[in-house]
């Protein structure tokens, strides 16, 4: 199974490189057809590339550290016990630390619900996982600045907290999940 996963990832990586090669060809043709655009296209690409390349290794190191030091089952284990306001903050914390795309978190959330976690905390956990992960915040800080990043972070925590309560209220009101 692990072999298969590796093969799958290799295939995906190859595909990404091919898309990149395709993009470069398209860009080259466009620049050839419109030579006056050469300077702006290349300087814009270079600006963004250099902004990215100085932080990408650091961001990857952070993600690597989080994924090794905070295994997913630890998160699930501690989460089941938490409740009340403590649960709310744990949900943020646990959502913030691990890495990986959101769909990785669905099975974890499912296990947490079965273990008796509150719906509102699950919503908080998923949302924190989706948009307030630390390495992700670092990239936001780099490209959009501290005011933007902090404002979005605080607004997200406030509104996601409210949303969690609303979803929990609706699900409690109308009966739990059918399955």
């Amino acid at each position: 199974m692990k072999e298969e996963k590796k093969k799958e990832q290799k295939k995906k990586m190859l595909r990404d490189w091919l898309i990149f090669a395709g993009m470069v060809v398209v860009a080259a043709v466009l620049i050839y057809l419109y030579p006056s655009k050469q300077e702006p296209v290349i300087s814009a690409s270079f600006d963004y590339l250099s902004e990215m390349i100085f932080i990408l290794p650091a961001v990857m190191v952070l993600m690597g550290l989080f994924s090794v030091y905070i295994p997913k089952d630890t998160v699930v284990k501690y989460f089941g016990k938490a409740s009340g306001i403590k649960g709310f903050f744990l949900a943020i914390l646990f959502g913030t630390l691990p890495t990986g795309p959101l769909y990785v978190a669905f099975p974890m959330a499912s296990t947490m619900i079965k273990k008796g976690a509150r719906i509102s905390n699950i919503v908080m956990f998923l949302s924190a996982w989706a948009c307030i992960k630390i390495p992700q915040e670092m990239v936001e800080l780099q490209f959009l600045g501290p005011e933007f990043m902090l404002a979005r972070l605080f607004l997200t925590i406030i509104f996601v907290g409210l949303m969690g309560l609303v979803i929990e209220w609706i699900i409690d009101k109308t009966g739990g999940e059918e399955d």
Partner: protein
Amino acid sequence: MSITAIFINLFALVCFMYGVYRDREKAVESLKKAAFSFFKILPTVLIIIVIIGLMLGFVPPSEISRFVGEQSGIFGVLLVGVVGSILHIPALVSFPLAASILDSGATVTAVAAFITTLTMIGMVTLPLEIKKLGKKFALLRNGLSFVIAVIIALIMGVIL
């Protein structure tokens, strides 16, 4: 290198040193993982960079701001929100993309709506979410996330 970039690198370094202090072997393992993820995401980053270059070079700012600038109003915000909900790209590369449309005349509101919907809502992964967490939960979460993404974006437009 900007101050922000230096800060990020220092932060990563401090975290790594702490990791080494806690458990040397694990620290080495995380470095390996980091290198692997770096090469895994590199082509995606480069693709986005080329897209940004082409967009900034070929699409005049007036066109960009017509859809996501001041004059597009609430319609622009909703449009960006829908695009963000449908697109399935890693959050890490969405920030340079967002910064580039901000540079060429998009409003803070539009950019905030884009990032928030992109990260919180997943049309592509909705079937999996329904399967794992139930239809009611998944639809409520995605639907309300859209609403709060728009609210967050509008507030950000006012305060920034």
